[in-house]
């Protein structure tokens, strides 16, 4: 690099790629995060899709974004605000500038800032930068479209195909800014387009052109960033989204349990990628059935469970509403079932592509009768693997439906995933009915943990009927006896209460915190980052973040009551706080609630928590 370039060494930096939903911003962001991860940086990504599939080109509603946060040490979130914003058109600049830091570098394609583009983006004047108060010194304005056309003029490609490569020019330029090794990107593209070498070649050519443009015109760049790799656990890694990690967790658990994996599902944003991922892996014996509706997705999974499979169904909040009757049937039939709820904004269709934690009370209580159901909430994209595995193990060993929760944010976001070794994971031993019980066995006999035995059809001597009507605890026959029903309700409850779950960890100033932050599920990264920032500023803060919601860890009450001030922070109007108050006598926390469909903003959390401490 030239000497006159100002090189800034940073611990972490966030880049946001934004453009029209057809501009390939997700791919550009994805390649950039892979390159960064490959050189050992910590990564966290967040795709921000528009709700419309194909909004009019250049319109404000059609803007798609992809934020990549890279760090020398662990990064917990995709970052509140970005250091570099790529805006491929005027609408992207208009809608995405609010995610940029005040001193951020802005890259724009001037060819997409023409009069028509500005009108579509509802700019009032012909100078969008001035209109938005952006300092021109921070802007790398380049004629990306024209340069890409020139670059591929001799390729024989049609204009439409050529324009699809614009994202790669932006990527090349960003790679220059971060001093990234382009070979990693080249290899990525060669593999991605292995069947279309011409496309790979064109993309590679354009990335190089973008990089060269950056190198040749460095004076217009405000900064060049360098992110060193500091501490990192050695091992082999891959980039994984939460949904993919969820699918992998199910596959791993099925293999460990020696069972066929069955997924009954119905497409729904943002959970569909779990169905997509599992549908690919038939060579592992995975069976996926895309059903006629959400109801059948869950019902067919329950049928598969009865028949002896590890059965799961995947959905989002609106689907849970429809699945609740079969989930309830699973409770009374006491069959294993994993219900995956990738939460999105509600009620009803709500905000399909956005993220919330508003399904918690629904999955805990949204059924008729006394229907206790374990709930596990994954905390990050990579944690979806461990949590999905734990959900399968719990369902199979305790003969119960289990809800695995994630949300749009961690489901679509990604992180560096250290390849797991299945041998290190705990065994999964379903309570199959022992052969010696033949002749005396009835379906609701229980082991010491109050779990009934599993007799899979095909086994001679164990024919039986299960169903939605209350059964006698001893004979398994239909019973309306009042004492028996009371007993069965208590048994189904105690079976769940007896499930062992790990203690909740307290991170940070566990001994002497002035404020304990409490959260659950997908907000872990933001709450952790907020705690780190406050502790760096000298505050005494701790974090207790819950993965196991039902049953709650045994140390819950002790942890919650240990600190003078406790705040429960969640992306709803206080559902987890309400649940904790119900479960822990005398627990009266402060609350931080937000239902915006967007991830928390760390700086806002810090400000609110600081206020609480000083109160």
């Amino acid at each position: 690099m030239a000497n006159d370039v100002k090189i800034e060494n940073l611990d972490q930096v966030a880049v946001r790629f934004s453009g029209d939903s057809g501009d390939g911003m997700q791919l550009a962001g994805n390649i950039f995060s892979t390159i960064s991860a490959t050189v050992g940086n910590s990564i966290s990504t967040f795709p921000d899709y528009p709700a419309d599939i194909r909004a009019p080109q250049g319109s404000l509603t059609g803007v798609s974004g992809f934020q990549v946060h890279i760090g020398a040490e662990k990064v917990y979130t995709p970052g509140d605000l970005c250091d570099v914003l790529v805006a491929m058109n005027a609408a992207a600049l208009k809608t995405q500038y609010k995610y940029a830091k005040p001193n951020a570098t802005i890259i724009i394609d001037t060819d997409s800032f023409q009069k028509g583009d500005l009108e579509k983006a509802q700019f009032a004047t012909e100078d969008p930068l001035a209109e938005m108060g952006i300092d021109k010194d921070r802007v790398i304005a380049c004629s990306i479209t024209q340069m890409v056309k020139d670059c591929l003029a001799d390729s024989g490609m049609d204009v439409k195909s050529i324009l699809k490569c614009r994202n790669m020019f932006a990527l090349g330029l960003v790679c220059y800014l971060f001093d990234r090794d382009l070979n990693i990107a080249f290899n990525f593209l060669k593999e991605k387009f292995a069947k279309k070498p011409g496309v790979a070649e064109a993309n590679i050519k354009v990335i190089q052109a973008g990089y060269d443009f950056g190198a040749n015109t460095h004076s217009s760049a405000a900064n060049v960033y360098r992110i060193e790799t500091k501490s990192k656990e050695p091992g082999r890694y891959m980039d994984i989204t939460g949904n993919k990690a969820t699918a992998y967790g199910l596959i791993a658990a099925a293999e460990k349990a020696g069972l066929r994996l069955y997924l009954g599902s119905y497409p729904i944003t943002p959970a569909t990628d779990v169905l997509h991922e599992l549908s690919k892996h038939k060579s592992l014996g995975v069976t996926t059935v895309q059903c006629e509706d959400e109801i059948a997705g869950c019902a067919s999974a329950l049928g598969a469970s009865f028949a002896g499979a590890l059965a799961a169904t995947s959905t989002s909040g609106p689907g849970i509403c429809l699945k609740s009757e079969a989930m309830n049937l699973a409770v009374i039939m006491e069959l294993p079932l994993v219900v995956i709820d990738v939460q999105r904004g509600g009620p009803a269709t709500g905000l399909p592509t956005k993220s919330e934690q508003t399904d918690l009370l629904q999955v805990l209580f949204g059924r008729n009768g006394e229907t206790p159901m374990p709930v596990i909430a994954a905390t990050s994209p990579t944690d979806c693997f461990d949590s999905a595995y734990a959900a399968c193990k719990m369902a199979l060993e305790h003969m119960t439906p289990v809800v695995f929760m994630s949300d749009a944010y961690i489901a679509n976001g990604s992180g560096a995933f250290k390849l797991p070794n299945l041998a290190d994971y705990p065994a999964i031993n379903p309570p199959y009915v022992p052969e010696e019980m033949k002749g005396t066995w009835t379906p609701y006999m229980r082991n010491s943990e109050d779990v009934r035995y599993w007799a899979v059809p095909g086994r001679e001597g164990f024919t039986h009927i299960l169903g939605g009507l209350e059964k006698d605890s001893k004979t398994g026959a239909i019973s309306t006896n009042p004492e028996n029903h009371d007993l069965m309700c208590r048994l189904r409850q105690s079976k769940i209460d007896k499930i062992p779950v790990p203690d909740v960890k307290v991170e940070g100033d566990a001994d002497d915190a002035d404020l304990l932050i409490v959260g659950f599920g997908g907000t872990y990264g933001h709450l952790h980052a907020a705690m780190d920032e406050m502790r760096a500023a000298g505050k005494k803060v701790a974090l207790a973040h819950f993965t196991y919601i039902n049953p709650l860890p045994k140390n819950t009450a002790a942890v919650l009551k240990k600190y003078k001030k406790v705040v429960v922070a969640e992306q709803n109007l206080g559902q987890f706080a309400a649940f904790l108050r119900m479960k822990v006598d005398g627990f009266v926390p402060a609350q931080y609630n937000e239902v915006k469909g967007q991830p928390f903003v760390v700086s806002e959390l810090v400000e609110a928590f600081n206020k609480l401490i000083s109160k």
Partner: protein
Amino acid sequence: MSEYTAKDYKKGQPRWCPGCGDHFFLASLHKAMAEIGVAPHDIAVISGIGCSSRLPHYMATYGMNTIHGRAAAIATGCKVSNPKLSVWQISGDGDGLAIGGNHFIHANRRNIDLKMILLNNRIYGLTKGQYSPTSPRGFVSKSSPYGTVEDPFRPAELCFGARGHFFARAVATDAPGTIEVLKAAHAHKGAAVCEILQNCVIFNNGTHESVYTSEGRKKNAIYLEHGKPMIFGENNEFGLMQDGFNIKVVKLGENGVTEKDLLVHDAHCQDNTLQLKLAMMEGPDFPIALGVIRDVEAPTYDEAVNAQIEEVKAAKKYHNFAELLETNDIWEVK
């Protein structure tokens, strides 16, 4: 010969009302099962909710008495994940065609190897007498005191409309006819709908009166048999002939009509046009068609799903979780 007798499939004491069609059907099912000879522990009988959905409680097989309307969906997962099971789905007209209508048509469309028994008494019995989706227009019930103002489903029409490949019909009191139909359903690979016409003595007495006795069936029904000419009547004096786009009833010997002029039943014909016409016949002008009306071979969903798994296993190089991980872009941190 089967090594089982009807007793091997029997369990418990049915609690339906005396005279209910379910009793007759259950007895025929036990006998049919014995003749079919699949071991009780390789059979799953899955029902929804309703009077007839109590049936799995009286079977010495594996069974599930599930939730209203979902039996076909639950049976689907059961069959697809464990294809060696013989899976029977038991539903009434409310369970199967109202709340479960969506699952009924999709199980037929996908052609899942389920034996789908539809016990049709044209009434909701368990909730004490409301009209069902098969009750005729104008039907007076507790929830339609002035008569319904809607047309009923005809199960065959729905099955054919959903691309069903097997449809048969029997009367609950006709044991030989019912057993024949159940055996044919078992022999058919794929979704096999058997409509069982049955009486509800309490809330819809006499609903299938014209064919409920053997005398009635002689007059008012025709037994269809593949490859046989369509003859019916107390003295086999009537037949069915094609008449342009329609079917007509003719009297043998009148206007020179002989047996050779009659339609010969073809249950295996891919095109379901005539089969549908037969299934839709009703009195008093036409006999009600009984027996196997349609029985056409087609690929089944459960076999195709499992065959595809085998194909992909042979084609792909990764077969366990550790190998799956290696299919990703991996980097190493040292």
